C-alpha cells in the first residue's frame, strides 16, 4: 500500500485516496468540432505505461482535492507530487 504525499495534507495511507487514471489529458474545448476518431482518442485511449507515468489522484477521504502524481508503475515508487494546474516536473519525461 502506497504512502502518498498529498500536497495539501501531507503523507497519508493509500486507503484515503482514489486513483483517477492518466493525468494531463485535457478535455477538448470544442468537442463538436472533433471527428469520431479524435473524440475517441480523448475518451478511450490511455497510455498505460510500464515505467514512469503521470497520473491523477484524489484525496477522497481527506481534503477532497485532486492532484497529480508521477509514479513508476514498474516498482510503484512515487517520484513526485504536484498540484493541479502546475507544470509536470521536466526531469521525468
Amino acid at each position, binding site marked *: *500500500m*502506497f*504512502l502518498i504525499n498529498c500536497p495539501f495534507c501531507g503523507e497519508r495511507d493509500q486507503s484515503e485516496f*482514489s486513483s*483517477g487514471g492518466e493525468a494531463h489529458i*485535457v*478535455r*477538448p474545448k*470544442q*468537442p*463538436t468540432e*472533433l471527428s*469520431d476518431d479524435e*473524440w*475517441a482518442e480523448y*475518451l478511450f485511449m490511455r497510455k498505460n505505461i510500464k515505467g514512469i507515468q503521470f497520473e*491523477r489522484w*484524489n484525496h*477522497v477521504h481527506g481534503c*477532497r*482535492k*485532486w492532484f497529480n502524481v508521477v509514479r513508476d508503475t514498474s*516498482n*510503484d515508487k512515487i517520484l513526485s507530487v504536484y498540484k*493541479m*494546474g502546475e507544470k509536470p516536473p521536466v526531469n521525468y519525461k
Partner: protein
Amino acid sequence: MPNYRIHKTEYIDETKRVSFKYDGKTYFGYEGDTLASALLANGIHLVGRSFKYHRPRGIVSCGAEEPNAICQIGSKKSLTEPNVRATELELYEGLEASSQNCWPNVKFDIGGINNFISPLIPAGFYYKTFMWPKSFWKKVYEPLIRLSAGLGKSPTEPDPDIYDHKYVHYDVLVIGGGVSGIIAAKMAAKNNLKTLLVDDKKILGGSTIYQNNESIKIDDKLSSEWLKNEIQEIKKLSNLTIKTRTSIAAYHGYNFLLAKENLTDHLPEEKKKNKIRQRLWKIRAKKVVIATGSIERPLVFNNNDRPGILLSNSINKYLDYYGVTCGENIILFTNNDSTYETSISLHKKGIKNIIVDLRKSASSELIKQAESLGIKIYFNHVVTNTFGYRKINSLEIMKLSEDGNTTVGNKIRLSCDCLGMSGGWTPMVHMHTQSGGKLDFRDEDQVFLPKENSEDQISVGSCNGDFDLENIIDKTVNKINKFLDIDNQDYQDTNIICSKENDKRNIWLLPNKIPLGKTKCFIDFQNDSTAKDIKLALKEGFRSIEHVKRYTTTGMATDQGKLSNMHALGIIADTAGVKMGTLGTTTFRPPFTPLTFGTLVGRNVGKFFEVVRKTSMHEWHVENNAEFENVGQWKRPWYYAKKGENMHDAVQRESKAARDSAGILDASTLGKIDIQGTDASEFLNRVYTNAWSKLAIGKCRYGLMLNEDGMVYDDGVTTRISENHYLMTTTTGGAANVLSKLEDYLQTEWPELDVYLTSVTDHYSTASICGPNSKKILNKIFPNLDLSDENFPHMSFKEDKLENINCRIMRISFTGELSYEINIESKYGHSLWKMCIEAGKEFNLTPYGTETMHLLRAEKGFIIVGQDTDGTMTPSDLQMDWIVSKKKYDFIGKRSLYRSDTIREDRKQLVGLLTDDPKEILEEGAQIVSDVKSKPIDMLGHVTSSYFSPNLNKSIALAVVRSGKTMKGQKLIIPMENKNINVTVSDTIFLDKENKRLNA
C-alpha cells in the same frame, strides 16, 4: 506405551503434564511441546494420508514448511479448524486433533487403492480423463471428484472468537529472531531507532538456541549460551518491542507489512475465553531487516515419503529442543556438513546412527569429530529405496558413479526405524521477493539469493545465503551498520569458531537402477507430485516453470511448495538442459503461511461489518413494522406490512392508497448537494443535458447527468434557491460518486468557475407526501402557506416555518401524483414525520416504502438509474430525447451522443411491456426474444422493472429491447423455464399520460 523422550531440556517443563487427544485416543505430552513433538514422543509418525495416492505419511519437519502433518483441530461446528500444521501447534491441555484425508482412519484408508492404480493416474490425469463423454461431467465426474477433493473440514457455524487489528509505525522492523535477527535488532535499538522484532516461534533464538556442539563456539561459549545472553540483553532495551508467536504474512510495497500474532492458540479452552485469539498487525516500517533463515531441503529418491523419514535438522531439533528422539536406529542421508551436527548429538545421547553421504569425501572438523566418535559413514553412496508401509523399517544404498549420474556395485540393505535427509539449505527469500526484490542464482551451492536490495530492505543471515556462523555474524554486523547508517562496535571483538564447511554435492534427482516410471520419488509431498510427473510434463511440451507447476500441481498445496519448488526447478533444468538460474522461479505470493479469515476480518463482523446509515425517522419505521431494504449503506423502509399481510399485499395496499388519497415516503436518503457561487448556473449547464440558465429562482428542474461517453450516470431534481444558490438531489446510491465527479470537473477541467459544492445529504430529512389529498394535508401543516397552483405550481419551491424551524418545501413528483417534499434540518426529521402522520390521519395518509415507490414511478414510466439503466443507455435509448438540449454548445457527454455507435438504430431501447395475460407478472432480468424456434435464439433484450399495478389492475413492465422504439404494438416472447410468456410492446408511460394528476 513407548517413550521416545530420552532427556530433559530447558524448553520442556516435565512438571507440567498435558493430556491431548489425537484421532480419538488420549496421549500425554508436556508444556513446551508442539503437537508434532508430543506425537513423536509417543512414537507416532503416521499422521495422515497423501492427497492423491493416499500413501501413509509422517511428520517431516519441525516448522512452517511441514507438508504432511496437517490436522483438523477441535470438533465443535464453530471452532473446528482444518489444515493446522502439527509442527507449529503448541500443545495445550484438552487439545483435540485428528488426521485428515483418510477414511475410515489413518491406519486403514480406503483411498489407499489409488496408490496401486497410480500408473493410471499420471500428471494431468483429470484433464485427460474426464473429457468424455461430455454429458458425464456434470452428473458423474464432478460430484465424484468433489467428494474426494479437499483437505479437512470447514467449520459450519460462525466463528465465535475475537480477532483484532492494530496499526503500528517503526523505524526498523526485523523479521526473524535467530542469531542474525537478534544482532540486527540490538544494533538498531541501541542506536535510538524504534525497533520491532517479530518471530513466529514461542521463543527467540532460531536454530542456534538449541545448538550444543563443542566445535561451534562464540566467545568461548556454546553458541546457544552466547545467544541466550544476547536475548537477555535485548530484552532490556527500551525502544525494542519483541513479538513472538508472530509471523509476517505479507510484505507489500512501501514497507507495509501484515503480521499475524497468535495470542491464545496455545492456551487451554477455559483460558481462551473472552480473549483476543489472533491479532493482525499492520506495520509501516522505515526500514526492514529480513532475517528469516533457511529451510532444509529433502532429497529426491525412491519412496522418500514413508513415515519415519524426516529432515535431518528436524531430527536434531526434536532431540535437542524437545528431548525427543525420532527413532532408536537412525540413518542420516546427506550431501552436506550440517547433518553431522545431528549425528553427533544423537550419538552423544546414545542413539545409534549411521551416515550416508553423497559426497566422495569431506574433511571438516565436524566430520573428523564424527569419525573419531566411531560413527559409520558411507561416503559416495546414495539411498535407492526404502521399505516399510506404515513406517520405514529398512533401506537400500548403492555406490555412486564418478559423475554421480548412475549407481554402481551392489545394493547394501540397512535396517533402521528413522531416516534423516538433508539436501542442503534453501534461503527463505519469500519476504524479499514479496517486497519486489529480484533473485540471483548461486551455482556453487544451487541457491537463489536476494539481489539488489532496495534502500529500505535488506536480507541478513542464512536467508541471504550465509550459512556458517562466522559469516552470519560478521556480514550481518557490517551490513546493518551500513544499512542503518550507524557505527555499532558491539560485535567488533566477537570470536567465532565454526567447524562446519559449506561444500555439498547437489543432485536434484538421485540416480537409481529402477526406471523412473516405476519409482515413487516425491517432490511435493502434500500434492503427491513426483519426479516422474515433472518429466512427463516436460515430455508433453510444457516448458515454463509456471505451466509445469500448474499441470503437475507441484508447490500448489497449503505449504506452497516450501520444500518442493527447488527440486521441481532443478529437475526441469536438468531435463531441459538449461542452467538453473535462467529458469527463474515461481512467484512467491502472500500469505507466507495460511491466515484465518477471522484475522483478516478483525472486528468487522456482524453489525460492525459495514457502516449503517439510518434516517432520523428510522425509529418510527421500526415501530410501524417496516421491512428494510439496503440501498448503499442506507436502511430504507421497503414496505410496511400490516397484520396478516405479505409483501405483495402491503405494496398493493400502499400503492392504491397513494393514488386514491395520500401516501408518505421517507425520502431523506436522496443525495443532496448544496451548490453555491457566481458560476453555479453555468456549472449546471455543463453537467446536465438540459438548459439551466433560465431557471427562475424558486423553481425546480429535473436533470439527467451523463458520463463523458454519453451514457446516463445519474438523475435528480435541482432547485434554484437564490441567484447563486442551488440544491441538487441525486439518487440515493449515487450521491458520493456524483459529488466526486462534479469536484473532479470543477478542480481539473473548469478551475475558472466560481462554484462550491457541499454534501448536505445528512443535514436534511425529507418527507414526501403525494396523492390527491396531499394539498389538504400540507395545508394543515403549513396553514399560512398559499398552496394554490398559481402561487405554488408544480416544479416550484417555497420556504416556511414549522414552530420557528425553517422548512424547504418542493412541489415535485416521482409518482405522477400531486406531491410535496418537505425538507427540515435532520434533528427535527422525526418530529416532522410524526406531525405529517398526525395531520394525514383523516385522509388515510399511508406510509409507503421503496417497493411502492418503484411501482408508482413505473406506472408513470419514470426511470430508475441503475435499474432501468446499466451504464450502456443514452438519453435517446431511454426515449428521453426531450431532455437533451440541442442549443447548448457543450455539456458532459454531448459529443458522444452522435458517435457512430450511439446513433445506431438497433441499440437496446427502453420500452413498456404488457403481458397478454394481465395477471402474469414478469421476472426482472428475464430475456426477451421474438422467436423461440430459431437456433441460436436471438436475444433482443431483458426486463428491467416489473410489477402488478393495483391502480391499472394489470401487470406492467419496463424493458430494454433492441430497436425497441420502433416496435410498439409488436408481440414478443419471454421464455421461462416452464413456459413462454407472450407480451406486447407498449408505451413506457402506463398511467396519466396527460399529467392531469400532477395538478389534481
